[in-house]
């Protein structure tokens, strides 16, 4: 399985979209060479604004540009955007304007930079905002499709969460993103694993291993966190009865919480959540950290087996 950088894909796609639509403007806060918006900046210097290390004014000005009819992209590291929660709340979401936050370096795959830079709360923070929609793409192909879809079909705020690390490419090149629709990567009848971002590839590996235990696993990419695909969650609860969620995020307020909300309202089922358990991250190699925080393939397998152990009680 090959891996590709989501943020590189973001930079490339932004340039293509910029060629097509001259009302696209891009703002960054001194991280454009890392978020890859610098590529757009070089090509379209008049439509690129490096606002310096000033995220609050960057977000407010993004609102002003959108209110003036521009399609606005705003980028920085996920963790630093969070300091502008209130600007996003009032100037972007309450105004309900066309601003897309495409953030990079989310989650623990930031690696060596450590806890200060590894945000695992952002999906929850953004999901709570009225008018805001939240997407966590699984790979570079979905990233590109999401960006095209958002540019061409939407005029409201979105939060798109990308990583520093390259992620395995799971989609076919012709894949097209559909908002609010999850994607089943593997069907199964005994257990469903809902995952997004890099955790989908982990879930697929875990599913293979669970098969050796005689468990037939369904794996679903829940890249749209908001609006969540309620139908596929209810269907999984009805058909497989048991659910595991896996995300590179806190178990609070991400897809783990959302899946629990849906099943408890609609069709109660066992749900086991995998993610960061109310803790900060840590310096280390990205892929080591998953084992350190019990978020590796084997941990998903373990949770899957636990669902069945409790069944026998």
């Amino acid at each position, binding site marked *: 399985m090959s891996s590709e950088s989501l943020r590189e894909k973001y930079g490339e796609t932004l340039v293509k979209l910029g060629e097509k639509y001259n009302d696209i403007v891009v703002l960054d806060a001194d991280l454009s060479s890392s978020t890859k918006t610098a590529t757009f900046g070089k090509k379209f210097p008049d439509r690129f604004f490096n606002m310096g290390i000033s995220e609050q004014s960057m*977000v407010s000005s993004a609102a002003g540009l959108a209110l003036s009819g521009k399609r606005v992209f705003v980028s920085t590291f996920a963790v630093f955007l969070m300091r502008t929660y209130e600007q996003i*709340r009032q100037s972007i979401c309450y105004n309900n304007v066309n601003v897309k936050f495409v953030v990079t370096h989310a989650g623990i795959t930031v690696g060596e930079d450590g806890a200060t830079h590894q945000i695992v709360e952002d999906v929850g923070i953004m999901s709570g905002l009225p008018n805001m929609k939240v997407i966590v793409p699984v790979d570079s192909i979905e990233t590109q499709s999401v960006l095209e879809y958002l540019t061409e079909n939407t005029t409201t705020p979105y939060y798109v969460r990308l990583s520093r690390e390259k992620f395995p490419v799971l989609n076919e090149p012709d894949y097209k993103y559909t908002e609010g629709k999850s994607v089943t990567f593997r069907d199964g009848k005994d257990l469903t694993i809902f995952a997004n971002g890099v955790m989908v590839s982990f879930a697929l590996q875990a599913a293979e291993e669970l098969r050796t235990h005689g468990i037939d696993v369904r794996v679903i990419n829940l890249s749209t966190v908001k609006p969540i695909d309620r139908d596929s969650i209810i269907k999984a609860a009805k058909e497989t009865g048991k659910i595991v969620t896996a995300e590179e995020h806190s178990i609070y307020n991400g897809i783990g919480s959302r899946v629990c909300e849906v099943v408890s309202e609609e069709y109660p089922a066992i749900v086991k959540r995998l993610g960061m358990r109310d803790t900060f991250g840590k310096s280390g190699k990205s892929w080591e950290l998953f084992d350190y925080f019990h978020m590796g393939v084997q941990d998903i397998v373990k949770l899957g087996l636990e669902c069945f152990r409790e069944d026998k009680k």
Partner: protein
Amino acid sequence: MTEQADLMIFEKAREARKLIIEMVYSANSGHPGGSLSIIDILADLYFREMNIDPTNPNDPNRDRLIMSKGHASPALYSILSLRGFFPKELLMGFRKLNSKLEGHVHRGVPGVESSTGSLGQGLGVAVGMALAGKIDKAKYTVYAIIGDGEIEEGSVWESFMAGFKYSLSNLIVILDKNNVQLDGFTKDIMPMGDIGAKVRSFGWNVFEINGHNIHEISETIQKAKNKKDGPNLIIANTVKGKGVSYMENNPKYHGSPPANQSEYEKALKDIKEMTA
């Protein structure tokens, strides 16, 4: 202040002052102090300086105004209504359920460009609009009204930096320097020293005026408009609660309406007796 045009603006401001008091008294809440301090400037902007058309509020060439101090909603709403953006009857729905006139400035109201209320954001929004104007080589001017308590927010200074970086000559910011904020006098809560010198050191053109002298307001806005370089800040020295004797310079009336019928009547009487 003898010119006929100035007197016309003064009378519009008087009408708006009356509406401000009626609105906050009817709602039994709201912010009269900072509405009365900025109202002369708003009256001049909306009745003389700004290129706007109430029958075409989305005209792409219109001038824009961001009321960053969104608690001065009674001031903006009353002026917009007087200018013809919506019927005066709607004003008495202010702060009440099923009215568009939210407690703080709300974009759903005709003529309002952006929702505000949480301080420190409007200047950034105005910077964004001015950037858009530059990209589009548009002729419009962007105005932002900020408060002197508001500039305690660090985000305002981030936006001062951005305004300088992008030489936003199409941006005119008016600072309503009424010296009072919710908890007391600005000099006690967070002394800012020489604001003009500070902003000038950020690379801005800075003007200083009496914010209740209609003629001076207009003259200075024209001066700022004619500047070819950089963004502009007009520091308007104002009186919190201007026009209502017991509200003037009294922090209590930052966020409290007239307490009873006699205070209400006194306020209207004071406004009626104001002289140009």
